[in-house]
């Protein structure tokens, strides 16, 4: 039993989006405008040309926040969305009725419809693909050239992520909603 989370040293992100490609390749995400499990958000650059603030241009890699108190799980009428034994928020395609209530309820825009199963899909920290095969990293983490992502067990005090969160300050997205997200943006 673990409690997986991810820390993101987002200021190191160079927007190469290798993570997006790795995620799609690893998890077989189909092409299409709305089909993505993870993405890199880009803040608008501040100032007027030619006085543009280069330092204001930051990137924010994002995905499912694997909330401890996930609104998508609460609203699911058939419990198709569930927490697995590692605290990862996942979808059972057998039980999903595609009412898309969870897509409406997610504050992070982390869900989409997978045309292979015609059910709702989302990031599952590569549980089916890598973790099931004994790997200890996610595809997005393994491929990142600037080591933005650190994935691991939040309940293990000796894990890299626990040590990182001990010594670095971090922020979380929309935490005022009480979702208790498990993605931590290092400051």
């Amino acid at each position, binding site marked *: 039993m673990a409690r997986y989370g991810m820390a993101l040293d987002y200021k190191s992100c160079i*927007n190469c989006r290798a993570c997006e490609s790795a995620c799609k390749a690893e998890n077989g995400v189909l092409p299409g*405008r*709305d089909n993505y499990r993870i*993405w*890199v*958000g*880009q*803040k*608008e650059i501040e100032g007027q040309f030619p006085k543009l603030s280069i330092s204001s241009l930051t990137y*924010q890699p*994002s995905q499912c926040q694997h909330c401890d108190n996930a*609104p998508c799980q*609460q*609203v*699911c*009428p*058939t*419990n*198709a969305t569930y927490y697995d034994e590692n605290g990862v928020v996942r979808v059972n395609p*057998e*039980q*999903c*009725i*595609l*009412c*898309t*209530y969870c*897509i*409406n*309820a*997610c*504050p*992070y*825009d982390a*869900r*989409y*419809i997978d045309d292979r199963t*015609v*059910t709702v899909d989302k990031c599952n920290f590569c549980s089916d693909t890598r973790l099931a095969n004994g790997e200890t990293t996610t595809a997005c983490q393994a491929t990142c050239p600037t080591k933005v992502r650190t994935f691991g067990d939040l309940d293990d005090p000796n894990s890299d992520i626990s040590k990182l969160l001990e010594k670095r300050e971090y922020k979380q997205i*929309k935490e005022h*909603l*009480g*979702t208790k997200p498990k993605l931590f943006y290092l400051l």
Partner: protein
Amino acid sequence: MNLSIKNLITFKKTPLNLLVAVIGALLLAAFVAGAVMYFLHGHHAFNVTRQHPWGLLIAMYVFFVVSSTGLCIISSIGHVFGVKEFQQIGKRAIAGAIITILSGFAVIALEIGHPITMLIYNVLTPGLTSAIWWMGTLYGIYLCFILLEFFFLTIKVDHKWSKIFGIGGLLAGLAAHSNLGAVFGFLISRPTANGVFYPVYFILSAMITGCYLIYIIYGFKYRNNYPDHLKAMFLKLNKILGMLLGILIFFEAWKILTALYGTMPERAETIMYAVTSPNFLIGELLLGMLIPFFIILFTNGQAIKPMVYASLTGMIGIFFMRYDLVHDTLVYPMTMLKRSEYQLPPTLLHYFPSPTEMMIGFGGIGITILGLYVAEKVFNLDPDPEH
């Protein structure tokens, strides 16, 4: 009951009857065509997206079940609460409630991706924290109750049992419908929808919809030329409707003011967008509320014939209320960061229904028209002699 085919296909060929027949047939054909498009292309036939996952079909589902609940509530004034003037509308109103909810189910069956899976896993692994689970389950119970109520009102007349099932249907309908409001009210991610407003507003607007539909159904049946016993009912209905519209306008005004006050991020911007859109100003406000309200107000509640026409504009307004409910809830994107270098910064989302969505959604009205016609032909929906 009269189930003969000859009885079903013969009707007076008046211009109004023919017009409604043609509109009904076209809408039914549209529904079938839309269903075929959906079976061929799935959700790709709809203009819904990841950011705006619900659209016209959810709005039309809400529209139909609001109509059903409304008719059930208004009919209960007579045969549950015993107000004499309303007892005569009981059978027709309950028939309308059954038909409109079935129309709603037909529409939502083509929006839910896996309706059969839903029937199985709603029972096997119920999501008890989900407002959709409660809404769906309670509407199932509600449908059973009003079917039994109708059975004991028309087929095997027994007023004791019809009243028992009437009370059950009313309570299940109120619970189901407020849960439908909670489907939106529970969305913590959507500040404009989150809160107590929608569960209460849904019941209020259902009662208003029920009044409008009683006017339209009886206006069509009697060609706006009513016997005295119906006039007495309509005069009371006017008073009820006027009061309900007054409360609705009051509620809406405070909802808007509290949402705009202090310009809270996301909420104020969304509501400002909503209340300045023609959908709200012309659809909801003018057609849905002000025209019927002012007719009742300025005629001191005595106008009956004009209210039939006002109810038609009212139902158009009710449609816009349902449409805006869905669209305004989802219009603010959940992430405001752009995902590509060559993209404009995200703004409020755009949504307009696809032809398939319109065919299925508006086609559902064809099912209602057909259902009301068949019910009128097969059953005796007029009051029993002792009423």
